[in-house]
């Protein structure tokens, strides 16, 4: 019956162990992760040859049984190959960590996390909270939340910039609010296959398997973007960038290539990308559903395009917008379909 034995399968290499902890977050990354498909999350662990030491939503062990698992890791009886943290590290109030004391022991959770990071072969920050601080660090950050190795976009956090796990790798930051299940599953598979090179992580420690893309890539609103044919309100089909706060042209993730829950994405469901994979996502200086503008021009333009070019091209493309695109942009349904293709076979 046991599917997670000490061997991954028969003569394969010994199973890698994985321990999952949660701190200052909402648990949503786990809930997203168990939406993984082909394979499902538990099968993915089997395939990767990963033995779950403990996961807060899945494991049997509670209380003293959990403490026993931690003790085995501490004593080195059981190796800790992969440590995953979901949720930010909470330092407050006044650096004491008392806003999150570990249930059962009353010790600051940040201390247990720091201790286990030192013992782990690899450390993965699951979600934007564990990566950069996330929504838990929003507002005035009353609870002094940080990521594992970053405090917002600044290196630091709990373990600091210089931290290297047993493998020699820095903390792997799978940012996102929530994470896409595939981002986690594919990174775990790469780790256990031994194919995750330093070059596979971007400058913020994010796996490039998703961060080499922009949310804009594959967005079905791209034709509207090309002509700057903009939605005037939520539910319109047009581009969400000019008026409704969409940051997809600047945000690193493959949300519109690798779709969510069987085929969705934020922009496909009619609302803007709010940059949930980027440090600082939690503290926009403008309302999320509004595009900040200067002299009528959006401030947040694509980062790698000269502004003058963007403005010139936008003016040109706006003038060239086909009536079809213009009318559909401010409608909730396609009211003007593309004209029928005049096939060559028929005359």
């Amino acid at each position, binding site marked *: 019956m046991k599917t997670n034995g000490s061997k991954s399968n028969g003569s394969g290499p010994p199973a890698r162990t994985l321990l999952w902890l949660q701190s200052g977050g909402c648990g949503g990354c786990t809930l997203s992760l168990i939406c993984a498909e082909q394979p*499902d999350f538990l099968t993915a662990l089997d395939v990767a040859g990963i033995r779950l030491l403990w996961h*807060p939503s899945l494991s049997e062990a509670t209380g003293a049984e959990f403490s026993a698992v931690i003790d085995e890791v501490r004593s080195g009886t059981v190796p800790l190959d992969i440590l995953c943290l979901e949720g930010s590290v909470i330092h407050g109030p006044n650096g004491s960590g008392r806003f999150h004391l570990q249930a059962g022991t009353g010790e600051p959770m940040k201390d247990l996390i720091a201790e286990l990071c030192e013992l782990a072969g690899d450390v993965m920050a699951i979600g934007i909270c564990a990566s950069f601080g996330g929504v838990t660090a929003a507002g005035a950050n009353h609870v002094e*939340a940080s990521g594992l190795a970053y405090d917002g976009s600044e290196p630091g956090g709990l373990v600091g910039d210089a931290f290297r796990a047993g493998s020699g790798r820095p903390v792997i930051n799978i940012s996102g609010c929530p994470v896409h299940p595939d981002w986690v599953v594919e990174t775990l598979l790469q780790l256990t296959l031994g194919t995750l090179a330093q070059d596979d992580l971007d400058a913020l420690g994010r796996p490039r398997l998703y961060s080499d893309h922009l949310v804009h890539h594959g967005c079905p609103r791209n034709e509207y973007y090309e002509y700057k044919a903009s939605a005037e309100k*939520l539910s319109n089909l047009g581009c969400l960038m000019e008026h409704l706060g969409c940051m997809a042209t600047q945000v690193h993730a493959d949300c519109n290539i690798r779709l969510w829950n069987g085929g969705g994405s934020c922009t496909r469901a009619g609302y803007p990308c709010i940059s949930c994979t980027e440090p600082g996502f939690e503290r926009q200086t403008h309302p999320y*559903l509004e595009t900040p503008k200067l002299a009528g021009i959006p401030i947040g333009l694509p980062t790698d395009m000269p502004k003058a070019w963007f403005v010139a091209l936008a003016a040109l493309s706006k003038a060239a917008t086909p009536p079809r695109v213009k009318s559909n942009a401010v409608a909730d349904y396609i009211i003007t379909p593309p004209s029928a293709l005049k096939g060559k076979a028929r005359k």
Partner: protein
Amino acid sequence: MSRRIVGPFNRVEGDLEVKLEIEDGTVQGAWVNSPLYRGFEQILNGKDPRDALVYTPRICGICSVAQSMAAATALADAEGLVAPENGRLMQNVILGVENVADHFTHFYLFFMPDFARPVYAGEPWYPEIAVRFKAVEGAASREILPVRSAFMHIMGTLAGHWPHTLGLQPGGTTHAIDHGAQARVLATLATFRRFLETRTFGDELEAVTALGSAAELGDWAGQLGPAASDLGMFLRLIEPLQLDRLGRASDRFLSYGAYAHDATHLFKRGVHADGKAQAFDQGQITEDLASGWFAPSDGPRHPSRGVTIPDADAKGGYTWCKAPRLAGKVVEVGALARQLVDGHPLICDLVKASGGNVANRVIARLIEIARLIPALEDWTRRITPHEPFYVDGWTLTDAEGMGLIEAARGSLGHWLTVTNGSIASYQIVAPTTWNFSPRDTAGTPGACEQALVGAPVRKGEADPVAVQHIVRSFDPCMVCTVH
């Protein structure tokens, strides 16, 4: 008298610790501690009111849509905005799918695995239960994960993704679906219904919801089909483990009313106390800070005037949770409360016989799944593509709003005050804030604290299994509790 601290509790959402006083093999007193504080109510202060739709879903990864819906309802109330029919139907479908998925996840992944613990290895029913429900390794968890993922495609289709969508707005929903998407959602619902009828219930959903009494439920469980079902397997554990005598709380129940539609609710609003239905008055809700780690207050306050100032050194504090009370009294919320207040005959009969307890909470959750699927099918069919789903609201300058909805785990309320265009106060009372509240000024324990008294403790048990059944029977969501 011995004392012990149990925690961390896993297979609950978020962090939980329980302090127990035990004598003669029985729990004499319990203190429930929610040890994580994040401060959403402070975070929201000063923000643009619409940004509540970005922040509040992120209170909780498992009740995310419910938090969206409460925020959207509070904002709509403040704006005096009414969403178009399609928008309201879509909101109900999206919220209902989360509710069903949460109950389904709770039963298979969070609750049932406790019966597959080694402590029960000597019981005659154990081998069958262990094969099916053992945590991680059992057949059920392997079987239901793909089923659950496929069901959540409805979220991808309607709301972009789950959790944490911005698709629910005060003015409706941001995605105006076409007939193709509508058909796809119906197909996904039908596929999920087939799993429920084959494995979870072993019978048609309509046959399950038609069960009208405890006697009928007993007869039903004795039949071949239902007996082979997962609900049937659970029902057969009730008697040997006396799950209908475990975990009784105050027997006062509250429901804000679930799934507003056609000027009413699918599941009624109301209070059930002293064995009968009573009216609900939201003005009677207060939050008491006596046992929370909060700055001293001038006594219990209505949430519209609530204050949240954390103080880790607060005298008398043992949790970050406030203590909500209705007319000064403890109430229990959740699927059991909802189905009781709504008057479902089976649930009324069960509560009449044995009150709120582990068995009845779990049965009510499964009955609710069976009642919700046909409702989801109906709402989806009633969506009319090409009619509006959304209307824009107004910019708020000075206003107050309230959003009372039902999340999977029970009554969820948001109270919002806007001053000069910014949030001046935002107070949230979540389902598990009610159920896992600490003692109030009068020293009255919260619902779970009451439910734990009398729980048996076996010899040598560090984390009593009965305590775990009781705690998980509430399906606690600790990240919502304190937020």
